[in-house]
């Protein structure tokens, strides 16, 4: 109970800070939307092709935005060594990991919905699927992405090689998430509910795996230096 309560407290802290400063949200929204528009333009005006590409474009835009958001959320804790204060205050260190993953899931889900909304408009997918139908994919892929990203950010630390190490370690971990989200949302767009549900189970398993890994290892990899 202490773990869940403290994680909620810390997630609330991150969301409150993010809503007050809006720096991370603005940066990720701009990056995600730009990526979607630019790749959409590069793909050309073929509507059928754009519809086919929409899930992949949206997920890739979300992944790049996740990197920016992770940097921003991590910076909140590293500025003025706030993480040192948290580390010594909190009774269960895993709450720091879980709280950060929860906050990032909320922010990525909001961003994912905005990106899908843009995809509906720019890539003309609204005839195939509703925003409500895509919601479980947005929530689960955000949860898997957030839980993996927060863990990798903690492993990489704040060193000079972080810029290189973060994407190199994170992107391979997230390939299954990317494939499950793309294939699942494509199945949804093709009105194949059974296949879509199967991919949702895969996404849920990935999210559970990453959260489990984070809870097992964060106390050893997340300590402030």
């Amino acid at each position, binding site marked *: 109970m*202490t773990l869940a309560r*403290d994680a909620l*407290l*810390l997630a609330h*802290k991150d969301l*409150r*800070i993010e809503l*007050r*400063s809006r720096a991370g949200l603005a940066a990720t929204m701009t990056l995600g939307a730009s990526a979607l528009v630019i790749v959409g333009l590069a793909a050309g005006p073929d509507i059928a092709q754009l519809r086919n590409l929409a899930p992949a474009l949206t997920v890739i835009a979300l992944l790049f935005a996740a990197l920016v958001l992770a940097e921003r959320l991590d910076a*909140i804790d590293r*500025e*003025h*060594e*706030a993480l*040192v*204060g*948290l*580390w*010594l*205050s*909190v*009774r269960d260190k895993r*709450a720091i990991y879980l709280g950060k993953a929860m906050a990032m899931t909320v922010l990525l889900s909001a961003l994912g919905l905005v990106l899908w909304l843009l995809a509906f408009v720019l890539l003309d997918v609204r005839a195939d699927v509703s925003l409500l139908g895509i919601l479980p994919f947005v929530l689960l892929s955000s949860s898997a992405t957030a839980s993996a990203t927060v863990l990798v950010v903690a492993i990489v630390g704040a060193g000079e090689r972080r810029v290189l190490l973060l994407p190199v370690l994170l992107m391979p971990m997230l390939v299954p998430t990317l494939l499950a989200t793309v294939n699942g949302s494509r199945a949804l767009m093709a009105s194949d509910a059974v296949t879509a549900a199967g991919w949702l189970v895969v996404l849920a398993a990935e999210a559970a795996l990453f959260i489990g890994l984070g809870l097992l290892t964060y106390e050893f990899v997340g*300590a*402030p*230096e």
Partner: protein
Amino acid sequence: MLVMSRTRRPSIVLSARGLAKLYGGTLALVGFELTARSGELVVIRGPNASGKSTLLRLLAGLTSPSAGTINVTSEAGERVAVAFVGHAGHLFDDLSAEENLILAARLAGADTGTVMSQLDRLGLAAVAGSRCRGLSSGTRRRVALARGLATDPAVLLVDEPFAGLDAGAADLVAAVLAEARNEGRLVIVASHEDARSERLADRTIELAGGRATETGSAAAGQMR
């Protein structure tokens, strides 16, 4: 005003044996020994780069010693809460002073009802609702100390508590540190501010080049 926490504080003994810390090839601390108990105020004194901050970070468990051991034991074997107030302050810029303290207290399982009193006794009631981003460095240092105390620690480690403070604010901080000792906490302060820390100390340990010499407690308990 003396603010006593409602939480029962464990009686603890901190013992450091043969403590050493190497950074690369540089010896920051060597052969450090200390045994200190609840209700003591130990001042670690020394010039810049003498190993004071390294020692506090070791005692807080924020870095591992290259050699030696640190043990913090409580009489009943319960968890010992440690607060470290470093140069950086450990505050979230976009939270108010009060929000920073409440968050720290909740995470530590301490009583949040004393938060305003903690701010008040450090002369910070007027800035309780202000975001820390807009506070002066001296005010931030006092908020950081209040944040540390809000977690109701059995061990309070404070690095240069008087740095950047005017005389009035430094006197307030000294009084609060003395109160923290009188409340039964073990308080360890690193400072190069001689006169004020001398008045405060039960014991003074001089550090120079990472090596320690204990100079006793000439003015011990003057501020009790």
